[in-house]
């Protein structure tokens, strides 16, 4: 399989990391905290979607919408209970609280849902494109035949829809513009009459909705259990920070970069080192942070 196939795999992985990373980075930019419990939002979205799909007689796309709504609801409830009251204490207490909340949530989910992994009932069709020429450069095939499944196309399609919707939200709606203003300079936004608490709440809801969608997409690819979302948190975080914390566009870019790096490193590393692919993603994150602490697109310099 050529480079093209691996890049396609990377794009697919990047897509659901991107959806989650947008929510994560918005929280970072506007609420000014790294939310380490975000993985649990994905997990809860996956569970809500699964419950909706199996317990109620609704088709899968509707269950996904239910999961998104559920994710938004969960997010705002948790934010109001745990994060809003300590908003003024600074990024480190908020980070630590999110770590504690994440531990509590993961184990509470395991208590309620039990240990067995559950699965979404889906069918996927594969589309093959074998007629493409190989275009070899040395031992690497640049193109070559490739395939995609219908599930994968849906993931990428959802991501594109989300990107367009977010772009529209941020540029054309009052709420979105207020979000950007707050992300830029909170005091100035408040002076201009922006209700900062309302905008923060909106960000929580939006991030929850995105987490719900990403969680369901992830669960369709793998399974639903208490650690479904937690296993992705470091990649989501890396994507958001890599792209420039606070910038949704940066998060998208960072997510695809991480996805492609993961795919290519699995494909081209010496075979004994296959288990190191996520370590490589982190190493790249650290490298970028050292060279350009504001990330790829960020303008704000995050120095102590």
């Amino acid at each position, binding site marked *: 399989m050529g480079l093209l196939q*691996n890049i396609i*795999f990377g794009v697919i992985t990047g897509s659901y990391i991107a959806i989650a990373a947008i929510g994560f980075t918005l929280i970072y930019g506007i609420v000014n905290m790294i939310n380490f419990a975000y993985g649990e939002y994905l997990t809860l979205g996956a569970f809500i979607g699964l419950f909706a799909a199996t317990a109620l007689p609704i088709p899968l796309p509707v269950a996904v919408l239910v999961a998104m709504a559920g994710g938004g609801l969960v997010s705002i409830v948790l934010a109001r209970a745990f994060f809003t009251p300590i908003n003024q204490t600074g990024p480190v207490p908020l980070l630590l609280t999110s770590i504690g909340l994440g531990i509590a949530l993961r184990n509470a989910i395991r208590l309620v849902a039990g240990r067995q*992994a559950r699965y979404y009932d889906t069918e996927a069709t*594969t589309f093959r494109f074998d007629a493409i020429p190989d275009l070899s450069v040395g031992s690497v095939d640049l193109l070559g035949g490739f*395939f995609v499944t219908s599930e994968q196309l849906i993931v990428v399609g959802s991501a594109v829809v989300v990107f367009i919707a977010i772009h529209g939200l941020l540029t054309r709606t009052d709420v979105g513009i207020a979000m950007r203003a707050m992300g830029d300079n909170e005091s100035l936004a408040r002076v201009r009459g922006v209700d900062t608490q309302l905008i923060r709440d909106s960000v929580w809801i939006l991030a929850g909705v995105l987490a719900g969608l990403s969680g369901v997409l992830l669960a369709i690819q*793998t399974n639903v259990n208490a650690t479904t979302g937690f296993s992705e948190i470091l990649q989501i975080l890396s994507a958001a920070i890599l792209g420039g914390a606070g910038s949704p566009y940066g998060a998208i870019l960072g997510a695809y970069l991480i996805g492609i790096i993961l*795919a*290519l490193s699995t494909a081209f590393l010496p075979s004994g080192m*296959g288990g190191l*692919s996520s370590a490589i993603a982190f190493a790249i994150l650290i490298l970028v942070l050292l060279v350009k602490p504001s990330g790829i697109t960020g303008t704000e310099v995050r120095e102590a």
Partner: protein
Amino acid sequence: MSSDNTAHVNRRAFLTIAGGSGIAGLSGCVGFGGEGDGNGGSGGSGGSSGPETITLGQPGALSGQWDFLQPGISQGTDAAVSQINEAGGPLGAELEVVRRDTAVDPQEARTVATQLVENDDVVALIGLFSSEINPLWDFLQDLSTPVVTPWPGSTFLDTRGGDKRTPTDISDDEWVWRTVVGDTVHTSGSAAFAMEEGHETLGVINGNTEGERSYVEGFLSAYEANGGTVAERVEVELGASSYQSALSRLFEADFDAFLVSLPQESAITALSDWSDGDYGRQPILSDTLTSQAVIDQVGSDLEGAWGATPGQSGPNYDTFEAAYSEAGDADMNAWTPPAWDAVQVTALAIERAGEATPEAVQRNIGPVSRSGGTKVSTFAEGKEALANGEEINYEGAATPVNFTQHGNVFGSVSINTAQNGEFTQTGEVSAADVREFVEEGEY
């Protein structure tokens, strides 16, 4: 330093109380030793008529990586215990099990083992994983309590454990007994079958955790010794969202069959990806993957895939299965029959010993399980035979439970193939054939 605000918890008081009580507690214990000590380390022995309850400890995976397997083990253990108690119990006492969670974490396992042995007064530990036994080896030797475990396949334990065929002499014993067939052995069975099926070239995809690697190492050493060649081997992380890149790389090579050694959830993701990618070729599954969930999730592409599992073909599997299915409806897994065997053989050892102490159990595990006595299939039969003054040879559910010098067992390996939506046994590699792959004294 800040002033002593009365609203703060008085730090000095806390330290004084903590320190004082510690010193007071220990002060009565310093000396030159030698006199009768205040320890009551033996297992629950009371008056001269024998104990009323005998306790076994079970360090379990109640949370953590393998927690979905524990319900089967717990049910198998409990079924064995109730059957033993119905037959009168070892030495007429009631057998009970204390189960504590280790989360498959060696640090927790150490604390749990200490607590079970020193506080709960157990006479043996029924449990512990490779990842717990290996780093705690020295500690377990010091603990001097028999560990009869159905879990570990690790090759590390091939030459460690058991009584070295000198049951009465404890000084050379290494205390760890395995009722499950080691990886070295059952992977040899699997490799032998692969060669029989004509798969002369092989691809491998495995996870980077110990159990998965150990399985592959065992398989490959027997496979290559038999003339097979490995075309490509790809190692991956667990819990990834997609294994497409790894599969794409693996299938660039040319081979007849490919071995999958991953924990169940990651394996399902990988095999689903394999099915989506239409890669084809013959899948060979590691023993943990021959479960219904895998077929259910991966679908019809898995028809014809096979895996070799140990532990389902002991001489008395039916006895075990009858008792197990009555005891509840937890899923059975490959470690459940060995768990049953572990409890049975320990109880029989206590019965033969006539006393319930760890040393006595250790001395008697070999004699009740090795060949040369009346064959028994249950505790009741064994108890009766021992009462008649006979030596016994316990034959178990997973294997005939004839412990080698290093406390390991041999068993036959059944080949299970996915047919018509479920795994059915389609072949067997006998214990004798499997034994050929293992050097004398190395297991």
